[in-house]
């Protein structure tokens, strides 16, 4: 095994690391903004609100991220009429397609987490809030969300990790993220083991940082 390759090509990996990080971070952030209302409203009594949200969550949780990305990236280009519109300005960029796919994907998964933890807030605690005259918004803000947040942390840290892992498919649509860098290095040196091992190490750094930060956060709730 020859790791001098990796040392030679390290700037390449570093820029890949940066691409992965900002892609994942941005999509997580926007995804969360989608997820909280989606998770809370997917059980709304109006079908006009409920069903589109459920369809969205169903589609993005039900099919592979890789396929979603292909569908957005190569699929969108199949329609010539679309290419004439302003949307093409964005869709023609690989990074935008990846960001879009990732955001919608994590949004759907996180919405499911929100739904799950909110549903398991002990009924009695919600009743107590009602009994003390809190309105729906206040109950949500003061009791349900803080109570749920603590229990959502493990699931959400998993979601972040899944997202970091999932982002590896970005390398398939010409984006030079960590995996993309490894692919290029492999292509040049025909050393898959070294190239991908280096990528694996970088991903590990990312995930363990996330795990560590969440452990700290969870600890602050222990009582």
């Amino acid at each position, binding site marked *: 095994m020859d790791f001098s390759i990796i040392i030679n090509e390290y700037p390449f990996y570093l820029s890949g690391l940066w691409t992965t990080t900002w892609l994942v971070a941005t999509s997580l952030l926007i995804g969360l903004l989608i997820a909280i209302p989606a998770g809370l409203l997917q059980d709304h009594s109006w079908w006009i609100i409920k069903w589109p949200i459920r369809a969205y969550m169903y589609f993005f949780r039900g099919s592979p991220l890789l396929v979603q990305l292909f569908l957005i990236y190569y699929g969108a280009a199949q329609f010539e009429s679309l290419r004439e519109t302003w949307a093409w300005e964005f869709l023609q960029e690989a990074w935008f397609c990846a960001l879009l796919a990732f955001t919608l994907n994590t949004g759907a998964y996180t919405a499911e987490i929100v739904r799950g933890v909110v549903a398991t807030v002990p009924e*009695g605690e919600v009743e107590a809030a009602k009994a003390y005259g809190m309105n729906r918004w206040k109950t949500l803000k003061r009791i349900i969300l803080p109570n749920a947040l603590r229990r959502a942390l493990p699931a959400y840290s998993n979601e972040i990790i899944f997202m970091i892992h999932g982002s590896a498919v970005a390398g398939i649509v010409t984006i030079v993220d960590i995996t993309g860098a490894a692919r290029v290095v492999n292509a040049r040196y025909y050393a898959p083991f070294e190239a991908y091992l280096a990528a694996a190490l970088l991903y590990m750094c990312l995930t363990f940082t996330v795990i560590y930060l969440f452990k700290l956060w969870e600890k602050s709730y222990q009582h």
Partner: protein
Amino acid sequence: MKAPTLSIKNLHKSFADNHVLKGIDLEAHKGDVISILGSSGSGKSTLLRCVNLLDIPSSGEILVNGELIQMRKDKKHGIVPASIQQVERIRSRLAMVFQSFNLWSHLSVIENVIEAPVHVLGVPKKEAIVKAEALLQRVGLYERKDYYPGQLSGGQQQRVAIARALAVEPEVMLFDEPTSALDPELVGEVLNVMRDLAEEGRTMLVVTHEMAFARDVSNKVLFLHEGLVEEEGKPEIIFENPSSERFKQFISTVY
């Protein structure tokens, strides 16, 4: 005469085809302490829960301070509150101690106690804390004020729940077996607290199995049986001279 603090008229409640309450009437004036007795499953908790609309009555009227809680027909649920704002306003004037405490598990003891005063009634936080600490002193839990509910024994949780209810200075207090998890000594202490409240002129509805409390502290006793008020009256009268066979039997078994 002033309107009664709480007035319940012909209250019915069914769960599916289980008809639990079959027409309850009740009137509580300022300073009344009403004990609700009844065997297990007779609907005592359900009655309390209907008062602040945690369970929605199937029919009947509830008035707080003469204000009728407006209901409207609903296809799915029979009737539902017409104005959720009204319900919330009224709830903020009632306080409930749940049979299973239902403390907020993500808040510490003191936070549990100040939560409603600060975030529902808008009491300044500092002020609320001062009062909460006094209340915790009163129920003997001042040292545990930074514990979380999960770290307390059953009896301790129950006392926190009582402090939480007292903190909102409610017009009506609803107690659902407030001493069930306590040892006799603590029972005595908690009942003393409730006696004080009674003397302060607070209106209370107390579901209890403590006959002594029913007899000595309350000024009215209600005995529920099969969804109806089977016996009702001043304790000194009905304990001496029960008119209902069932109630006679009920109190005769008490040790």
